[in-house]
């Protein structure tokens, strides 16, 4: 590879963005061929944080492997755990108590908001505005505090066990979530004032990184990335899991397909998550928070697939079981990996400054891509 770095035969310059670069939010390496400021090709080189989680899971028991997935997409770790637990429950046919289901969904949505908050701040920071980052963190900290109180951790919660959740919610939980909702509602106007309505911001985002609906599907893009192109792909709506069927919320769709559309999808999605939380927070049913399960889980022989909607898109867990105590093969379909593959297609012909806007709206989490 070293010989390639430098100049191409056509006189274009190849520059390395990453593995250590402020715009990549982690150890992603992009080899970019540019002519002046115009991008001709983007070539991702992955694997800097590859831990072979799929291989590791093959030697972990069904109770253990769930928590390795927190380390993939660490911003939606709860949703990853949820997917694994759902997959196991499907295989073992465990009835999850309704209290646990509601708690899980509440946590999912809080995680989603926290993830989008972080993305919002980092996105603005990519474009050179530092202040929004701190404003986003003000709200995100509140969520992290709620998580810490109930789950015992702020980022990798590891709160879900097959059959329910690890322990009951903290007595303060409901009140603190309500406080968070009122805080969020009082501050969400600031987001639009500070970033969305800014003319420079809009100019940087509109028409940048266009992705058509067909391409979005073909590249396997999911989540807000695809919904910005007008593709219906919210797993919560299409293949409802847990209690999402009974909840009132909208799938946010924008049709423009550019970075601004993807931005708007995420910002509006936060409001939908708030809506879901509002429906559930006063209606947490009484009862057990965990179903009775055996100490050692043995998944029957067969294949199990569970799709869930994380903050970044569709996350899939594919377990192949031979009937033993450990999975025979596990495949995690991570949303970031597929979304990243569209970057080259989107970036060609745009300016170097646009690349950070595109990467920002793809919402890349590198451990999620590398696994």
């Amino acid at each position: 590879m070293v010989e390639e770095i430098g100049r191409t035969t056509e006189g274009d310059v190849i520059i390395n963005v990453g593995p250590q670069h402020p715009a990549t939010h982690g150890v992603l390496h992009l080899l970019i061929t540019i002519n002046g400021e115009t991008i001709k090709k983007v070539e991702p080189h992955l694997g800097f944080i590859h831990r072979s989680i799929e291989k590791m899971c093959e030697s972990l028991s069904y109770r253990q492997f769930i928590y390795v997935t927190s380390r993939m997409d660490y911003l939606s770790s709860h949703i990853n755990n949820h997917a694994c637990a759902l997959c196991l429950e499907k295989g073992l046919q465990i009835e999850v108590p309704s209290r646990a289901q509601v708690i899980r969904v509440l946590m999912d949505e809080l995680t989603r908001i926290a993830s989008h908050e972080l993305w919002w701040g980092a996105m603005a920071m990519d474009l050179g505005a530092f202040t929004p980052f701190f404003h986003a963190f003000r709200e995100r900290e509140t969520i992290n505090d709620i998580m810490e109180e109930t789950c015992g951790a702020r980022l990798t919660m590891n709160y879900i066990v097959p059959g329910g959740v690890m322990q009951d919610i903290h007595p303060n939980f409901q009140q603190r979530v309500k406080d968070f909702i009122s805080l969020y509602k009082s501050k969400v106007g600031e987001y639009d004032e500070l970033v969305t309505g800014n003319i420079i911001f809009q100019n940087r985002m509109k028409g940048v990184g266009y992705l058509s609906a067909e391409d979005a599907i073909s590249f396997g893009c999911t989540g807000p990335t695809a919904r910005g192109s007008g593709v219906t792909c919210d797993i919560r709506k299409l293949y409802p899991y847990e209690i999402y069927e009974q909840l009132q919320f909208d799938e946010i769709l924008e049709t423009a397909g550019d970075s601004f559309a993807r931005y708007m999808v995420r910002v509006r999605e936060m409001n939908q998550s708030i809506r879901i939380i509002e429906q559930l927070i006063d209606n947490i049913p009484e009862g057990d928070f965990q179903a009775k399960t055996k100490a050692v889980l043995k998944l029957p022989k067969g294949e199990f697939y569970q799709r869930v909607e994380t903050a970044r898109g569709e996350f899939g867990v594919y377990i192949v079981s031979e009937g033993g105590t450990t999975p025979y093969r596990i495949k995690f379909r991570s949303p970031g990996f597929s979304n990243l593959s569209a970057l080259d297609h989107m970036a060609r012909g745009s300016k170097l400054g646009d690349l950070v806007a595109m990467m920002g709206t793809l919402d890349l989490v590198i451990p999620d891509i590398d696994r």
Partner: protein
Amino acid sequence: MLSFSNISKSIDSGLRATFDATWTMVIEMVIAGVCVISLFAILGLVLVLMERKVSAWMQIRLGPNRVGPKGMLQSLADTVKLLVKEGMTPDGADKFLFNLAPFIAIIVAMLLMAPIAFAKDFQLWDMNIGVLYVSAVSSLMVISILMAGWASNNKYSLMGAMRSGAQIVSYELSAGLSILSIVVLTGSLNLNDIILSQANGWWIFKGHIPVMIAFIIFIIAVTAETNRAPFDLAEAESELTAGFHTEYSGMKFALFFLAEYVNVFIVCAIGATLFFGGWMPFHIGHWEGFNQVMDFIPSSVWFFGKTFFLIFLIMWFRWTFPRLRIDQLLNLEWKYLLPISMFNLLLVTAMAILGWYF
């Protein structure tokens, strides 16, 4: 009344009593040089601290608060850190140009100090082409950036330097044209004359709408000229890591850093001089009583007050706006600011001829 003019006069007369004219001049030059260098250092420290406090205030956090009372010695501690750091020169770099570039940056910033009137009768060099001198010397800044970018032998640095070259050369035009509108109104290139012409009111009020337009263009253009956000494309840390000073470390980096802040101070001082009357107190036409009350505030306070207000304005931009893209940046200049400022200059000229100002 205690003011800089009295202090400088007493020093001057004291020196003349003991030395002959030549020695007096030499000693005065040395004093002036020492004053400029120390002002330079103090400005750097104060502005860095101010930037950090302003940004902290906008970002709902506290900012530096550990070193010294309320963190006031933070920038001093940073300077010490930068001083003792190893100043590395990359292997493939053009060593001579690489080491020269930060000094050019700092020398240009120092030269710009000369014509600025810090207070009444307190000016290093009262030259008759002050405005021309400022615009000429400030455009030398781009040379140091290009030199740094080229000599670093780094693609990010080179791209940053090229962006910066395109940007500074373009925005100089609007800055120059908006400065010209004040020159047209006063009929003088001498900064002192321009200040004195504002004795019955600052140009921003006397010249009403056209001068306000000129002022807005001036502020935008100088923000771009000093490579400050939202026009910090030369540095653009999310795109080019650190742009033209990617390879610099230690004191060489600190010199660029210092030059940037001193440049901000200088352009704000020029802005304050041209549009807000420099050290001239706030006067309204023939309101003698009011004007006399205003005169009690020392002229240096007026000057620094106005300058720091403009600096705050520029910092406010930095911490609120996202960065522009390079083509948008050049579009803004060539398609909007330049035509507007040209038309505005015509308007100001017509206004000056017809006497449509207060």
